[in-house]
């Protein structure tokens, strides 16, 4: 009994790390750049496929791909914001209009990216194995790659947290999240900050994609599932809060492993019940102000 509970808990924590990274990305894109990015999962998919290609075609270690794929996606996100979303921001009179229009643009992006991925890689499942020797954690046996992903997720989260709280750039981002107009008046280059935040969101998606491809099979249409998970965690943890994203990620990870132990096909239903309860009880989330 106790070992089962431990199994479930550890499996949940191992999953929660990746979930948290995914959510941090969306949290930045919506919390600061005000783009409700329904194409977030497509960036994750691109990260995963990038890693897969580098590993299978060039034999590059996935942990090295971590610092190769994500930065490329950062640039992609940065330039998408600089071109498309900035044009939209300029033409929208109020922020609500920008929010609804940017969501639709993101839906268009999702279609484009998914179509390209299907054309290039086909729609069947791909995968590779790396570091899947079994490891024993407190009686529960897991492949080593799960442990590695959790460690890297925590590391990425911690570095990014320090970046936001300690550096000048981080301060500018936090200021822009609170009040873009005032931040602009204080000399923050607001357009640059928004583009950076969207880029950082894509960066996080890239990291998450690489880490996911380590543990799970991947396919071109995998994105939507992770977009939804990100939306739920962000709502759970509070928009724009990194700590909240990590708490939400671990909660969702544990719920996921608990429910899939009892009845696997109800996992997503369980997510939604939590999500709906959270929206009704405290829509601002655990760490929301």
């Amino acid at each position, binding site marked *: 009994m106790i070992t089962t509970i431990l199994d479930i808990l550890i499996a949940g924590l191992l999953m929660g790390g990746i979930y948290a990274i995914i959510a941090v990305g969306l949290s930045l894109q919506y919390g600061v750049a005000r783009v409700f990015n329904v194409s977030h999962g497509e960036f994750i998919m691109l990260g995963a496929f990038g890693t897969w290609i580098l590993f299978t075609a060039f034999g590059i270690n996935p942990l090295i791909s971590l610092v190769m794929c994500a930065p490329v996606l950062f640039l992609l996100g940065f330039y998408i914001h600089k071109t498309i979303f900035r044009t939209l921001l300029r033409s929208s009179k109020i922020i609500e209009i920008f929010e609804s229009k940017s969501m*639709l*643009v993101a839906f268009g992006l999702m*279609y484009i990216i998914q*179509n390209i991925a299907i054309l290039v890689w086909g729609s069947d499942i791909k995968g590779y194995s790396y570091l899947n020797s079994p490891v024993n954690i407190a009686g529960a046996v897991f492949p080593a790659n799960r442990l590695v992903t959790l460690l890297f997720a925590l590391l990425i989260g911690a570095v990014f947290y320090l970046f936001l709280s300690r550096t000048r750039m981080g301060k500018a981002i936090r200021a822009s999240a609170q009040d873009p107009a005032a931040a602009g008046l204080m000399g923050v280059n607001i357009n640059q900050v928004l583009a950076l935040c969207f880029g950082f969101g894509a960066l996080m998606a890239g990291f998450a994609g690489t880490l996911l491809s380590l543990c799970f099979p991947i396919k071109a249409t995998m994105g939507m599932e992770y977009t939804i998970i990100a939306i739920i965690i962000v*709502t759970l943890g509070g928009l724009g809060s990194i700590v909240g994203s990590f708490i939400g990620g671990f909660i969702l990870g544990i719920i996921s492993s608990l429910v899939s132990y009892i009845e696997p*096909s109800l996992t997503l239903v369980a997510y939604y*019940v939590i999500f709906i309860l959270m*929206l009704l009880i405290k829509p601002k989330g655990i760490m929301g102000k």
Partner: protein
Amino acid sequence: MEILTLLKSNKTLRTATIVVLILLILATLPIYTPDYTIVLLSSILMYVVLTVSWVLFSGPTGYISLAPAAFIGVGIYSTAILGDSMPFPVVVLVSGIVTIFIALLVGALTLRLKGIYFTIFTFGLLELIRHLVLFLELHLTGTRGRFVIAQDFITVYFYMLIILAVLLLVTFLINRSKYGLALRSIGQNEEAASHIGVNVTTVKIATFVISAFFMGAAGAVMATRWTYIDPGIAFNMFFSFMPVMMALFGGMAHLYGPIIGSVVFTYLEEFLLTKLPELYMMLFGAIFIVAILYLPDGLLGVIQKGWAALMRKVRKDNLGGNHANS
């Protein structure tokens, strides 16, 4: 003559006459057009119904709802389950009523949420219902999909036309009643609206429910065209984004904006899907983005701008002519 002067003086009557004429023309179309046109027109009518009923609620209030796909899916599943036990008109009506109950529940739960939280919720609702239905189907009936009793394409067409006619009438009546005014006041300032005595929650839920009824009914009719459905087909996120996109693409300043938007967009979808099925998603996504970026007031805005420019030119020419005469 008298009728003509009456039509000239009364704008509402004029619009009503035009709408009735168009509906009559549409109703006689199956006599002299090829079958394919009727099938295409049914899709167009479906999207017009979806978009107009989406605008009915989201247009004046500004609450961006991503629930259409959920309501359509509920309509589709009601038809699939009830299809062989009742006559078709009853099935469509009952599907609409089932959708009403879902919408009542959702509305009561969520219409207290503001802005993006409402959107997020309705986005999640679709996936929740889809997975729940999938779970129930797998565990209770042991099937993944269902067969729907097919109706011939003329029946589908006429049902869509009737639903559209009723929807247009309802929209018209709501817009000119005090409820329409209350809805618009909610969109402008919800707190002020509630202070001057508008029962904000009731008005919002009532409109949300009415718009859901038409989506459910449209889904019920369309289900007979697909013959086979499963949760993935019935609860397709695409149906949530299309009405929003078509409304924005057409322009929401007038009722005919969304109608133009859905006609053009459905035709475009059909064209791309048949001509370039492999690049369909990509091209459609690109059109989505370009339309949002470069048509801020929709096609309606473009038409109005063009019309205004034309009028200015005509007036200028007239003035010039007068000068020459004097």
